[in-house]
Protein backbone atom coordinates (compact mmCIF):
# COMPACT_ATOMS: atom_id res chain seq x y z
CA UNK A 1 0.00 0.00 0.00
CA UNK A 2 1.67 3.17 -1.18
CA UNK A 3 0.32 6.62 -1.87
CA UNK A 4 -0.83 6.87 -5.51
CA UNK A 5 0.82 9.67 -7.43
CA UNK A 6 -2.34 10.87 -9.16
CA UNK A 7 -4.36 12.05 -6.17
CA UNK A 8 -6.31 15.23 -6.73
CA UNK A 9 -5.89 16.77 -3.30
CA UNK A 10 -7.95 19.80 -4.24
CA UNK A 11 -11.01 17.68 -4.94
CA UNK A 12 -10.47 14.93 -2.40
CA UNK A 13 -13.55 13.17 -1.01
CA UNK A 14 -13.72 11.91 2.59
CA UNK A 15 -13.88 8.28 1.37
CA UNK A 16 -10.73 8.76 -0.68
CA UNK A 17 -9.09 10.50 2.25
CA UNK A 18 -9.95 7.55 4.50
CA UNK A 19 -8.39 5.18 1.99
CA UNK A 20 -5.07 7.00 1.76
CA UNK A 21 -4.83 8.03 5.42
CA UNK A 22 -2.58 5.11 6.54
CA UNK A 23 -0.08 6.04 3.85
CA UNK A 24 -0.31 9.73 4.64
CA UNK A 25 0.63 8.93 8.23
CA UNK A 26 3.42 6.61 7.15
CA UNK A 27 4.97 9.14 4.78
CA UNK A 28 6.95 12.15 5.86
CA UNK A 29 7.00 12.88 9.56
CA UNK A 30 3.51 11.55 10.22
CA UNK A 31 2.12 15.06 10.73
CA UNK A 32 -0.84 14.82 8.40
CA UNK A 33 -2.41 17.94 9.89
CA UNK A 34 0.53 20.00 8.63
CA UNK A 35 0.55 18.59 5.10
CA UNK A 36 0.06 21.64 2.83
CA UNK A 37 -1.69 19.49 0.22
CA UNK A 38 -4.45 18.75 2.71
CA UNK A 39 -4.93 22.23 4.09
CA UNK A 40 -7.99 23.00 1.97
CA UNK A 41 -9.54 19.55 2.42
CA UNK A 42 -9.15 19.51 6.21
CA UNK A 43 -10.55 23.03 6.49
CA UNK A 44 -13.62 21.94 4.54
CA UNK A 45 -14.03 18.66 6.43
CA UNK A 46 -13.80 19.29 10.16
CA UNK A 47 -14.68 15.70 11.06
CA UNK A 48 -11.73 14.43 9.07
CA UNK A 49 -9.56 17.12 10.66
CA UNK A 50 -10.71 15.99 14.12
CA UNK A 51 -9.85 12.40 13.26
CA UNK A 52 -6.37 13.41 12.12
CA UNK A 53 -5.81 15.44 15.28
CA UNK A 54 -6.90 12.54 17.48
CA UNK A 55 -4.71 9.99 15.70
CA UNK A 56 -1.72 12.32 15.88
CA UNK A 57 -2.34 12.85 19.58
CA UNK A 58 -2.47 9.09 20.17
CA UNK A 59 0.79 8.56 18.25
CA UNK A 60 2.53 11.38 20.11
CA UNK A 61 1.40 10.14 23.51
CA UNK A 62 2.48 6.61 22.60
CA UNK A 63 6.07 7.80 22.34
CA UNK A 64 5.97 8.71 26.01
CA UNK A 65 5.14 5.08 26.81
CA UNK A 66 8.65 4.08 25.74
CA UNK A 67 9.92 4.82 29.22
CA UNK A 68 9.47 1.73 31.37
CA UNK A 69 6.66 1.70 33.90
CA UNK A 70 6.94 -1.70 35.51
CA UNK A 71 9.52 -3.86 37.21
CA UNK A 72 9.75 -7.65 37.27
CA UNK A 73 9.62 -9.44 40.60
CA UNK A 74 12.80 -10.67 42.32
CA UNK A 75 11.87 -14.19 41.28
CA UNK A 76 12.96 -13.41 37.70
CA UNK A 77 16.56 -12.63 38.62
CA UNK A 78 16.71 -15.58 41.02
CA UNK A 79 15.65 -17.92 38.22
CA UNK A 80 18.16 -16.39 35.81
CA UNK A 81 20.97 -16.78 38.33
CA UNK A 82 20.02 -20.40 39.01
CA UNK A 83 19.92 -21.18 35.30
CA UNK A 84 23.26 -19.49 34.64
CA UNK A 85 24.86 -21.42 37.49
CA UNK A 86 23.47 -24.62 36.03
CA UNK A 87 24.89 -23.69 32.62
CA UNK A 88 28.24 -22.98 34.24
CA UNK A 89 28.23 -26.30 36.08
CA UNK A 90 27.37 -28.15 32.87
CA UNK A 91 30.19 -26.35 31.06
CA UNK A 92 32.70 -27.39 33.70
CA UNK A 93 31.50 -31.00 33.39
CA UNK A 94 32.14 -30.77 29.65
CA UNK A 95 35.63 -29.41 30.32
CA UNK A 96 36.41 -32.32 32.65
CA UNK A 97 34.98 -34.91 30.33
CA UNK A 98 37.35 -37.77 29.52
CA UNK A 99 36.64 -39.81 26.46
CA UNK A 100 36.68 -43.45 27.60
CA UNK A 101 37.67 -44.56 24.10
CA UNK A 102 40.59 -42.19 23.87
CA UNK A 103 44.04 -43.88 23.73
CA UNK A 104 45.93 -43.84 27.02
CA UNK A 105 49.45 -42.43 26.96
Amino acid at each position, binding site marked *: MTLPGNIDFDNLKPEEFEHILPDL*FASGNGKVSQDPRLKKFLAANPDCA*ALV*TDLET*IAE*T*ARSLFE*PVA*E*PSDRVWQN*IQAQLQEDSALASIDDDYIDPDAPVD
Partner: protein
Amino acid sequence: MSCQGLMMTQASPGRVNPGLYKRNPPIAGEAEAIQAAQKGDPEAFAILYNLHKRRVYTLCLRMLGNVSEAEDMTQNAFLHLFRKLGSFRGESAFSTWLHRLTVNLVLMQLRKKGLSLVSLEETVNPSDDDAPRRDFGSRDPVLAGSVDRVALERAVAALPPGYRTVFVLHDVEGFEHNEIATMLDCSTGNSKSQLHKARLRLRELLRNPSQPPQPSAYTESAK
Protein backbone atom coordinates in the same frame (compact mmCIF):
# COMPACT_ATOMS: atom_id res chain seq x y z
CA MET B 1 -3.28 -16.24 2.54
CA SER B 2 -2.32 -15.78 6.10
CA CYS B 3 0.76 -14.26 7.55
CA GLN B 4 1.97 -16.78 10.08
CA GLY B 5 5.66 -16.98 9.34
CA LEU B 6 7.20 -15.14 12.22
CA MET B 7 10.92 -15.33 12.06
CA MET B 8 13.01 -16.04 15.08
CA THR B 9 16.04 -14.21 13.93
CA GLN B 10 19.01 -13.44 16.04
CA ALA B 11 19.42 -9.86 17.02
CA SER B 12 21.35 -8.27 14.23
CA PRO B 13 23.81 -5.71 15.53
CA GLY B 14 24.68 -4.65 11.99
CA ARG B 15 21.21 -3.20 11.28
CA VAL B 16 21.02 0.02 13.15
CA ASN B 17 17.72 1.80 13.45
CA PRO B 18 18.73 5.45 13.88
CA GLY B 19 15.39 6.35 15.45
CA LEU B 20 15.69 3.64 18.03
CA TYR B 21 19.35 4.41 18.66
CA LYS B 22 18.39 7.99 19.49
CA ARG B 23 16.00 6.65 22.07
CA ASN B 24 18.62 4.25 23.40
CA PRO B 25 21.61 6.39 24.29
CA PRO B 26 24.61 4.60 25.82
CA ILE B 27 24.33 4.14 29.59
CA ALA B 28 27.22 4.96 31.91
CA GLY B 29 29.08 1.81 32.92
CA GLU B 30 27.28 -0.33 30.38
CA ALA B 31 30.23 -0.87 28.02
CA GLU B 32 32.47 -2.04 30.86
CA ALA B 33 29.75 -4.36 32.16
CA ILE B 34 29.30 -5.85 28.68
CA GLN B 35 33.02 -6.54 28.35
CA ALA B 36 33.18 -8.13 31.80
CA ALA B 37 30.02 -10.17 31.19
CA GLN B 38 31.46 -11.44 27.92
CA LYS B 39 34.29 -12.88 30.03
CA GLY B 40 31.74 -14.55 32.32
CA ASP B 41 31.80 -12.13 35.25
CA PRO B 42 28.56 -12.84 37.20
CA GLU B 43 28.52 -9.38 38.78
CA ALA B 44 28.54 -7.84 35.32
CA PHE B 45 25.51 -9.93 34.41
CA ALA B 46 23.73 -8.48 37.42
CA ILE B 47 24.66 -4.93 36.38
CA LEU B 48 23.31 -5.46 32.86
CA TYR B 49 20.15 -7.02 34.23
CA ASN B 50 19.54 -4.11 36.57
CA LEU B 51 20.18 -1.57 33.81
CA HIS B 52 17.71 -3.11 31.40
CA LYS B 53 15.20 -5.21 33.36
CA ARG B 54 12.49 -2.56 33.53
CA ARG B 55 12.53 -1.74 29.84
CA VAL B 56 12.60 -5.38 28.75
CA TYR B 57 9.86 -6.32 31.21
CA THR B 58 7.67 -3.37 30.21
CA LEU B 59 8.03 -4.34 26.55
CA CYS B 60 7.07 -7.95 27.33
CA LEU B 61 4.15 -6.84 29.47
CA ARG B 62 2.78 -4.55 26.78
CA MET B 63 3.05 -7.17 24.07
CA LEU B 64 1.85 -10.16 26.09
CA GLY B 65 -0.61 -8.35 28.35
CA ASN B 66 0.02 -10.78 31.19
CA VAL B 67 2.24 -10.35 34.24
CA SER B 68 3.26 -13.97 34.64
CA GLU B 69 4.03 -14.50 30.97
CA ALA B 70 5.89 -11.20 30.85
CA GLU B 71 8.12 -12.30 33.73
CA ASP B 72 8.81 -15.66 32.10
CA MET B 73 9.64 -13.90 28.85
CA THR B 74 11.92 -11.42 30.61
CA GLN B 75 13.78 -14.34 32.15
CA ASN B 76 13.99 -16.04 28.77
CA ALA B 77 15.25 -12.87 27.07
CA PHE B 78 18.04 -12.30 29.57
CA LEU B 79 19.11 -15.95 29.47
CA HIS B 80 19.31 -15.70 25.69
CA LEU B 81 21.20 -12.45 26.07
CA PHE B 82 23.80 -13.83 28.46
CA ARG B 83 24.31 -16.95 26.36
CA LYS B 84 24.69 -14.94 23.15
CA LEU B 85 26.58 -12.01 24.59
CA GLY B 86 29.83 -13.15 22.99
CA SER B 87 28.35 -12.39 19.58
CA PHE B 88 27.61 -8.76 20.47
CA ARG B 89 30.19 -6.62 18.66
CA GLY B 90 29.00 -3.20 19.70
CA GLU B 91 27.98 -2.18 16.19
CA SER B 92 24.63 -0.93 17.47
CA ALA B 93 23.32 0.26 20.80
CA PHE B 94 23.28 -2.63 23.23
CA SER B 95 19.69 -1.85 24.20
CA THR B 96 18.64 -1.86 20.53
CA TRP B 97 20.18 -5.30 20.19
CA LEU B 98 18.47 -6.46 23.36
CA HIS B 99 15.11 -5.03 22.27
CA ARG B 100 15.23 -6.79 18.95
CA LEU B 101 16.12 -10.05 20.66
CA THR B 102 13.23 -9.60 23.10
CA VAL B 103 10.73 -8.70 20.39
CA ASN B 104 11.67 -11.77 18.37
CA LEU B 105 11.21 -14.00 21.42
CA VAL B 106 7.84 -12.45 22.24
CA LEU B 107 6.63 -12.82 18.66
CA MET B 108 7.66 -16.46 18.71
CA GLN B 109 5.74 -16.95 21.94
CA LEU B 110 2.63 -15.28 20.51
CA ARG B 111 2.82 -17.49 17.48
CA LYS B 112 3.16 -20.59 19.66
CA LYS B 113 -0.04 -19.52 21.38
CA GLY B 114 -1.70 -19.59 17.99
CA LEU B 115 -2.40 -15.89 17.86
CA SER B 116 -2.72 -14.54 14.37
CA LEU B 117 -0.69 -11.36 14.60
CA VAL B 118 -1.33 -10.07 11.13
CA SER B 119 -3.75 -11.24 8.52
CA LEU B 120 -3.10 -10.36 4.93
CA GLU B 121 -6.70 -11.10 4.08
CA GLU B 122 -8.09 -8.39 6.26
CA THR B 123 -6.51 -5.68 4.14
CA VAL B 124 -8.35 -7.02 1.12
CA ASN B 125 -11.52 -8.12 2.82
CA PRO B 126 -11.83 -6.35 6.15
CA SER B 127 -13.95 -8.07 8.74
CA ASP B 128 -16.78 -5.92 10.04
CA ASP B 129 -16.45 -7.54 13.43
CA ASP B 130 -12.75 -6.96 13.75
CA ALA B 131 -12.10 -3.61 12.10
CA PRO B 132 -12.71 -0.41 14.01
CA ARG B 133 -15.72 1.59 12.99
CA ARG B 134 -14.93 4.16 10.36
CA ASP B 135 -16.13 7.09 12.27
CA PHE B 136 -15.52 10.56 11.00
CA GLY B 137 -18.61 11.91 12.70
CA SER B 138 -19.54 12.82 16.25
CA ARG B 139 -16.47 14.85 17.03
CA ASP B 140 -15.50 14.52 20.62
CA PRO B 141 -13.32 17.11 22.31
CA VAL B 142 -11.90 14.59 24.76
CA LEU B 143 -8.93 13.70 22.61
CA ALA B 144 -8.31 17.15 21.24
CA GLY B 145 -4.81 18.09 22.22
CA SER B 146 -3.98 15.53 24.86
CA VAL B 147 -4.45 11.95 25.94
CA ASP B 148 -3.83 10.77 29.46
CA ARG B 149 -0.80 8.45 29.50
CA VAL B 150 -2.43 6.02 31.92
CA ALA B 151 -5.63 5.94 29.90
CA LEU B 152 -3.65 5.20 26.75
CA GLU B 153 -1.72 2.44 28.52
CA ARG B 154 -5.01 0.86 29.56
CA ALA B 155 -6.46 1.19 26.07
CA VAL B 156 -3.36 -0.39 24.50
CA ALA B 157 -3.73 -3.35 26.86
CA ALA B 158 -7.31 -3.76 25.64
CA LEU B 159 -6.35 -3.95 21.96
CA PRO B 160 -6.58 -7.28 20.12
CA PRO B 161 -3.11 -8.91 20.01
CA GLY B 162 -2.46 -8.20 16.34
CA TYR B 163 -3.23 -4.49 16.62
CA ARG B 164 -1.38 -4.23 19.91
CA THR B 165 1.76 -5.84 18.51
CA VAL B 166 2.07 -3.46 15.57
CA PHE B 167 1.12 -0.41 17.63
CA VAL B 168 3.68 -1.18 20.34
CA LEU B 169 6.41 -1.97 17.83
CA HIS B 170 5.83 1.18 15.76
CA ASP B 171 4.45 3.91 17.97
CA VAL B 172 6.03 2.93 21.29
CA GLU B 173 9.25 1.10 20.40
CA GLY B 174 10.03 3.12 17.28
CA PHE B 175 10.49 0.35 14.74
CA GLU B 176 9.89 1.28 11.09
CA HIS B 177 7.21 -0.39 9.00
CA ASN B 178 9.79 -2.27 6.93
CA GLU B 179 11.35 -3.67 10.10
CA ILE B 180 7.96 -4.70 11.47
CA ALA B 181 7.11 -6.31 8.14
CA THR B 182 10.30 -8.37 8.37
CA MET B 183 9.61 -9.38 11.95
CA LEU B 184 6.00 -10.34 11.24
CA ASP B 185 6.75 -11.74 7.79
CA CYS B 186 4.16 -9.57 6.10
CA SER B 187 4.08 -6.59 3.77
CA THR B 188 4.84 -3.02 4.82
CA GLY B 189 1.36 -2.12 3.55
CA ASN B 190 -0.10 -4.60 5.98
CA SER B 191 1.92 -3.14 8.82
CA LYS B 192 0.65 0.36 7.95
CA SER B 193 -2.90 -0.89 7.73
CA GLN B 194 -2.72 -2.70 11.08
CA LEU B 195 -1.21 0.36 12.74
CA HIS B 196 -3.93 2.60 11.38
CA LYS B 197 -6.65 0.26 12.58
CA ALA B 198 -4.98 0.01 15.97
CA ARG B 199 -5.01 3.81 16.30
CA LEU B 200 -8.66 3.94 15.22
CA ARG B 201 -9.54 1.32 17.83
CA LEU B 202 -7.60 3.23 20.47
CA ARG B 203 -9.52 6.37 19.57
CA GLU B 204 -12.76 4.48 20.14
CA LEU B 205 -11.54 3.09 23.44
CA LEU B 206 -10.35 6.49 24.65
CA ARG B 207 -13.57 8.18 23.65
CA ASN B 208 -15.65 5.46 25.30
CA PRO B 209 -13.66 4.42 28.36
CA SER B 210 -16.73 2.68 29.77
CA GLN B 211 -16.31 -0.11 27.22
CA PRO B 212 -15.65 -3.38 29.05
CA PRO B 213 -11.92 -4.16 29.23
CA GLN B 214 -10.59 -7.09 27.25
CA PRO B 215 -9.52 -10.08 29.34
CA SER B 216 -5.92 -9.68 28.21
CA ALA B 217 -5.42 -6.35 29.91
CA TYR B 218 -2.36 -6.97 32.09
CA THR B 219 -3.85 -9.86 33.95
CA GLU B 220 -2.22 -12.41 36.14
CA SER B 221 -1.95 -15.67 34.32
CA ALA B 222 -4.55 -18.27 35.20
CA LYS B 223 -2.07 -21.08 34.79
